């Protein structure tokens, strides 16, 4: 073991109490810190990506800026670093009061890690203020967002190259769990680098997760199947849906008709209830979380045994991110996608609703008075107008984007439809070498009944909450009296 490697391991032991790194972690850190390279790392979900920038930040000193896409996740990311003993951490985003944002910017020297949304980073004044600090590491978390969301949803992602220059080219680390060749090339193209990014591409394959799709006749059948699965699958699990309203309804139903303890998790949940859900889930006091995909979940729980998609994701990247919450302890887990023929219409409608229609683009460029623009679409159009694009150019751009998104949706539907070699289908989509023999297995469809026992899912013993103890005892327990 080299001196550097020994030092890395000593850090790992000292701060995280682990003896060994997970695959990819040490390689990325060595490239970044010993060989001084900028890195694009594609590491499957559950490999501990955050540990890489935590450790690199500790090693490099100065300020580590982490660009993170999900506002709802940022506070959880801060809390996670706090729990690792890193106190000088802060999040800066549009959900904060302007007074708080000002306070943070005034006190930047007091922080070692800053989580920031791309929109906030590119705001006038913010980038300039940050650039006055010694930024030693710029991390782009969920870097696939640059290609996936940049052009038609969050154009500020396309300006991160400017931030990199403003910070005087610090060490650059781009992290994602899913990025095919095209996405990786798109990411590279955003940055003007002294030398190309060093790529570490690990397979998206998660061999311990059994992949299953079940096509059902209609909504009622899907609902009944969900109840059946939630009742029979062991261990903690997550159900993903695309609508908050339906998430609430399904929670009530699951709570009433199964013996599992269930909670919903989405953007409308009050802060203290969100905390209760996170903590209870972590401590095995809560069995099932019904979550919306749009709302990031800041829960890093190693023993989630199953993920069920009640509504499918809009692309395979998103799907793999979500099922990647299962089996992070490398023990067997299962990902089940329930699907009816009409589901892709629902997703397709969601895709279309995000992209401005031709008529909207026309009204924008004609500056039609009192036209009711969707605020998200307006921001997007304003961005492209500020880049000097005309109506025709923007229209063509969105048409191309829509095509790309529809293709991605088709791949998702194809994943459900395909009745042979499902695991290799995923690998093909991401441009990976196909597996052979047993390694290509561990998947199934509705054609065969799900044999839960054969999955050998480890069981987790649920903990009782302290809900039933009297208030005096609870108080004594809280304060060790």
């Amino acid at each position: 073991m080299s001196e550097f490697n020994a030092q890395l391991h000593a850090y790992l032991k000292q701060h995280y109490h682990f003896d060994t790194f997970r695959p990819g972690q040490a390689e990325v850190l060595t490239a970044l810190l010993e060989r001084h390279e900028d890195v694009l790392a594609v590491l499957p979900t559950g490999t501990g990506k955050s540990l890489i920038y935590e450790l690199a930040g500790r090693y490099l000193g100065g300020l580590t800026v982490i660009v993170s896409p999900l506002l709802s996740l940022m506070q959880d990311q801060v809390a996670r670093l706090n729990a690792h003993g890193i106190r000088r951490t802060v999040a800066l985003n549009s959900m904060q009061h302007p007074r708080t944002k000002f306070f943070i910017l005034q006190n930047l020297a007091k922080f070692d890690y800053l989580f920031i949304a791309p929109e906030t980073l590119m705001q006038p004044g913010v980038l300039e203020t940050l650039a006055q600090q010694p930024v030693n590491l710029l991390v782009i978390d969920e870097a696939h967002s640059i290609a996936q969301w940049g052009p038609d949803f969050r154009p500020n992602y396309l300006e991160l190259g400017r931030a990199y220059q403003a910070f005087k080219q610090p060490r650059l680390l781009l992290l994602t769990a899913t990025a095919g060749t095209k996405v990786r090339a798109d990411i590279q193209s955003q940055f003007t680098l002294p030398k190309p990014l060093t790529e570490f591409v690990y397979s998206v394959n998660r061999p311990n997760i059994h992949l299953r799709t079940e096509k059902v006749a209609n909504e009622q059948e899907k609902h009944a199947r969900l109840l059946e699965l939630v009742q029979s699958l062991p261990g903690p699990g997550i159900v993903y849906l695309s609508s908050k309203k339906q998430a609430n309804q399904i929670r009530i139903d699951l709570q009433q008709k199964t013996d599992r303890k269930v909670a919903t998790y989405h953007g409308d949940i009050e802060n203290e209830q969100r905390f209760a859900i996170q903590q209870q889930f972590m401590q095995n006091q809560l069995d099932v979380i019904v979550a919306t995909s749009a709302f990031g979940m800041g829960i890093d729980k190693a023993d989630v045994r199953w993920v069920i998609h009640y509504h499918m994701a809009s692309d395979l990247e998103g799907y793999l991110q979500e099922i990647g919450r299962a089996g992070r302890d490398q023990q067997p887990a299962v990902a089940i996608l329930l699907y009816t023929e009409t589901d892709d219409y629902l997703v397709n409608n969601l895709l279309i609703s995000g992209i401005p229609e031709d008529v909207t683009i026309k009204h924008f460029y004609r500056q039609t008075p009192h036209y009711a623009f969707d605020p998200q679409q307006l921001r997007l159009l304003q961005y492209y107008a500020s880049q000097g694009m005309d109506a025709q150019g923007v229209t063509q751009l969105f048409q191309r984007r829509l095509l790309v998104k529809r293709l991605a949706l088709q791949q998702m539907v194809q994943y459900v439809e395909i009745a042979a070699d499902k695991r290799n289908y995923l690998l093909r989509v991401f441009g990976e070498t196909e597996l052979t023999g047993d390694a290509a297995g561990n998947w199934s469809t509705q054609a065969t009944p799900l044999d839960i026992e054969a999955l050998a899912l480890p069981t987790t013993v649920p903990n009782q909450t302290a809900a039933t103890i009297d208030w005096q005892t609870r108080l004594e327990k809280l304060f060790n009296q």
Partner: protein
Amino acid sequence: MLAGYVLTKLNSTEWRRAKVFGNIWQGGAQTVSTSFWGLVYDLLPETGLFASVEIEKIVKSLQRQGLIARDEHGLVQLTAKGASAQAEYVTTHYVPEHLSINQSYDVKFFQELFLLANQTISELAYSNAQFYPYQIDLRAQWQLKNWLKGHSREVLIKQWYLELQTWLATLPNADAQLFTQMLFGHDVTNALFSELPVPTTWDEFDWQVWQLDHLAALMTHSLQSDSLIKSLMTLAQRALLSNSAEQSVTLWQQLQSVNQVAQGRRIKPNTVREHILQAAILQRWSANEIELLIPASEQKVLADLYGDAEITTWDFKAYAGGKDPRYFTYFRLYQLLQLATKRGAIDVRV
């Protein structure tokens, strides 16, 4: 369910400004008009409690259900159906009782401080520094950190525990039980709404209101002695007036005239009058104090004009439409005077 709660703020005899509800619940800077109507509707104790309220949406929905009527100026009142819904709401949902302290201390902000303080002290009691902290506004976190540093470990653990225990013992057992369900700390999680022993008619909004109301009760109790919780409350103390209003009122109370204050501060006399009005409303000046602000001649004109009519029905134009803005100040002050005299309760300065 905030929509149902809105019904409790209305009646079937008086038209009310729904916008005022939204402005007050959202918090932030208030105009004199919002503060005044907030006082009339007894809404000021709920300042900033429901920041995400979309009042227009709620009003439209209540109107669609036939529970409220809306006049051409956008004022609303309960229909007969709305009155029944209101009666049903108050029997099946939680209605707060202790929120008046929220006018001088920000209960919502205190809730965040209190929960994180409680968690930190609990972890401290187990000498654990590595935990997943409850996430609150960063400035609040720093304030709390400084507050914690100002007390010894032993005092924090012992006194915090004792103060909570003493106060909880004064509550009915079921309330004490519920209150501790919202606390979390070392190896103790707070309860999900679905596992709380509350009436089946309650929803998460009731639980939210219950928590705020009981924290307000704890705060009111803690003010009575030199407690640890009282010292934490200082971080949540509200400045009732803006700096500018505070300056105007101070100068004016030093017996400078409105015009002198305006000249000295280089602001309009009417702005000074607004500052004084805002102070009278938010600092709850007594009827005697308000009376001194209105010339006796104007009081007579106003008394002759409006008599015993409900102040919500008074029309300013009938008194001094188009006249100097100071007459509007007299008009408002006279309304305040009537309110203060009638209620008596607001004769108490906070």
